[in-house]
């Protein structure tokens, strides 16, 4: 019997294959699962100040306004602005939807998976 030294895999082949698998895994992860779930992003004067996942109850507030996630939807529950348009906007849960409070310079936007980029 002839001795057989396996040459199919050498150390660099193994490294290459492992790295390839990792890259494939990462690609699939980012391509298919861009978001773990939908969430509400809260911006104050153009800066993101909080991200609230919609799958659990939560809230964010400052001295002027209170934003609450409840039952998978986000709404403004308290505000000291004169017109209260943000509060009247109701609860939102669709990607692309937003609630804007101009006097307090607060914007709440839904991000994540959805059929539309924005809702006008």
């Amino acid at each position, binding site marked *: 019997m002839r001795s057989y030294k396996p040459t199919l895999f*050498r150390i*660099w*082949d193994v*490294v*290459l294959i492992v*790295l*390839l698998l990792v*890259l494939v895994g*990462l*690609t699939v992860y*980012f391509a298919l699962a861009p978001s773990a779930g939908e969430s509400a992003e809260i*911006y104050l*004067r*153009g*800066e*993101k100040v909080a991200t609230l996942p919609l799958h659990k109850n939560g809230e964010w507030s400052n001295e002027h306004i209170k934003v609450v996630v409840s039952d998978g939807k986000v709404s403004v529950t308290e505000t000291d602005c*004169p*017109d209260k*348009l943000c509060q*009247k*906007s*109701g*609860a*939102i849960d*669709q990607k*692309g*939807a*937003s*609630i*804007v409070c*101009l*006097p307090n*310079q607060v*914007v709440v*936007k839904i991000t994540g998976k959805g*059929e*539309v*980029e*924005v*809702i*006008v």
Partner: protein
Amino acid sequence: MMKKALSIILLLALLVVFFACSPAERTAYGFSMGSDYKVSYDFNGDLDKEIADLFASVESSYSVRVDSSVLSRLNAAKAGEMITLTSEENEVLYQAFALASATRSAFDPAILPLVKLWGFDPPYEMNGEVPPADIAILKATILSEMNQFTLYHDLSIITKRSDDAALDLGAAIKGYAVGRALDLLREKGATKGLVWLGGTVGALGDSYPIGVTAPRESNQDYAFRFTLSDGEICATSGDYERYYEYEGKRYHHILDVNTGYPASSDVISATIVAKDGLIADAFATAVVVLGVEKGVALLEEYGLKGALVTKEKKVVTVGLTVTIKDTTYEIV
């Protein structure tokens, strides 16, 4: 040895491909012209400052809430006083005059006296408003006609006939600003972009699905969607944006200068798609005033696309393919 080198080269190539696949998308957020803006763009660099500066400059030129703007100076001027325009202001006003004429004043930039009389000017509190008396409406209607103003386009000068006449491009200037933002992104070499300014949206380098709000529902879900293509801008006007109720009747903010009252057409929401933002914005307002029959004719005359929603929840499309989501709406 060769094999090892080859492996490493291959690996590096793969890494480059992998990271090149995830674009460097940036987003600029802020407030301008009484609205929030969100500009997402693919670019190897930061254009947030340029975008903020652009919107600030449009606002400082055309907002009636900025005292030094050309419109504030014109509105504060006496009858017959000559206001000199920059070449850009001259072109924007020229286009606004042309749009008022094209829409038979359904889009009327001179409507500010009527808007104020009805109480639809900022801060939009809409608490306890009472519709004005007929005689006051008649007076304000005369003041709100475009013929109160004369634009001497060749001389870059504008004048007005009455002290109290006032111009307000609020219904269209966001569209203009979105168009300018798309131009900025294009000039800088951004490959893709989506510009949002208070509900007026522009697309660059790609197509984007856009949802249109169900006009009478409050949950902000959308009634139908359509695709906004590269270089297009869409604007939506609806009678649901600002309104008040008095003795059981609903009064909304889209006023018709031809009657002096809120538009009472069969269209409650109009989304218009055009290559030019000022046109999209002006026609969106005009079509809500004009109604389905005249609105569709106008869009066809100017080769524009749009989707009109009627009181009976019918969606009338002109050159636009829409997909219904809320099945209480029906395409006709």
